[in-house]
């Protein structure tokens, strides 16, 4: 009981600082997921291009992302970008996260594109639509709908993974919790607090994805 009250106390008194962290987590997640989506779409199209060299490039990228821990990717990109290219820390963090999620999003989009019945492509061709036009107007809209649940899931993973940027010194949600815990030698309440923030974010996102799914199902 005592400790529960203490947790509430910490939760409320740390609100201001966590809001700053939340804002950084938010910006970081939105920026990295938008960029990851573009990267993912790009590599998905390379993978289905039927051009060997482009497929190899996409395979290599996905292999590297899958084969190394995210924290290693973040550190390499962080030191590479901030030391050598003098890119600000925030964007180095965004780059690390986007580089990582992009590979998983590429696989999701590729799978969704390939799951669309080939009759759709043939219908487009038979109407005189070019390959690119058919892809853009017929295949991709259907593939994105089909990918919504998996993409939503990957976005949730991306938001949670963004906590790793605290190791390059960013004061995101998790960074705030670590710093506050270390400063007060009172770790547990701060980590509980940060867990609640992540749970709430994921809850909101899950509800949003469910709502989108329902809406899409209605039009199908």
């Amino acid at each position, binding site marked *: 009981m005592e400790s529960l009250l203490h947790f509430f106390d910490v939760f409320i008194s740390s609100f201001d600082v966590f809001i700053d962290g939340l804002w950084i987590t938010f910006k970081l997640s939105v920026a990295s997921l938008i960029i990851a989506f573009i990267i993912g779409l790009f590599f998905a199209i390379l993978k289905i291009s039927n051009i060997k060299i482009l497929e190899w490039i996409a395979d290599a990228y996905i292999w590297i992302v899958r084969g190394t821990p995210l924290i290693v990717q973040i550190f390499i990109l962080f030191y590479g970008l901030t030391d050598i290219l003098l890119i600000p820390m925030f964007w180095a963090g965004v780059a690390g996260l986007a580089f990582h999620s992009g590979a998983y999003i590429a696989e999701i989009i590729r799978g969704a594109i390939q799951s669309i019945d080939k*009759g759709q492509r*043939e*219908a487009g*061709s038979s109407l*005189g639509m070019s390959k690119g*036009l058919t892809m853009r107007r017929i295949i991709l809209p*259907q593939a994105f*709908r089909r990918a919504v649940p998996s993409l939503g899931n990957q976005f949730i993973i991306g938001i949670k993974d963004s906590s790793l940027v605290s190791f390059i010194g960013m004061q995101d949600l998790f960074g705030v919790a670590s710093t506050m815990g270390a400063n007060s030698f009172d770790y547990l309440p701060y980590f509980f607090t940060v867990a609640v923030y992540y749970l709430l974010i994921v809850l909101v996102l899950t509800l949003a994805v469910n709502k989108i799914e329902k809406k899409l199902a209605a039009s199908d």
Partner: protein
Amino acid sequence: MSEKQEMIKVDKLNKSFGDLHVLKDIDMTVTESDVVVLIGASGSGKSTLLRCLNFLEMKNSGKIIIEGEQVEKDTHNLNEIRQRVGMVFQHFNLFPHKTVLGNVIEAPTQVKGLQKEQAILEGKRLLDKVGLADKYNVYPSTLSGGQKQRVAIARALAMKPDVMLFDEPTSALDPELVGEVLTTMKELAEEGMTMVVVTHEMGFAREVGDWVNYMHDGRIVESGKPNDLFDNPKEERTQAFLSSIL
């Protein structure tokens, strides 16, 4: 008297999938306003022939001439030629994320650059024609098979093709829905549309067809006017096929 134009001419067409030789020295001519029917057992190559005519499959050898233009796989205006040859598929292949009207105006607006208002006007006229005036704004998933196929016909017609290809357009339909699609096709034929139709509907072939080709094992083994071919088949294989389906 003006000579009728040759819309499609096929000369010694061969097509293989790997080691499987599917079309063997096919010769065929489709004349303006004619309805050419392709019949034959499953696997005899009817779909492949139709798909070659619309370049969904690329031939291995021989000639395909569309309205006087010989077409090869590197022909630069392939998509423009495809616009002149409409195709209706067994499984409709409607765009599920677009409304009925959206399906019909897609290619005219995106490929021909037709103004949307104009495309909608013409799309509605085509949908009225195939008896779907009350379905403009619904999604294909809410339609019956017969309605879907009529949307597919309207969608193909929206590109104002000179020839229409039909690949077993009624084979996926419940029996009670076959008639409405055949009626639409018959009206189209009566308006003078040039058509190549793969079908097992012998009544339709006899009534609407001007010419019937019987395919067996990748070859056209017999062709003739419907009444001649159905009543007096010369080839044994044709006789065997006809007696198997009647």
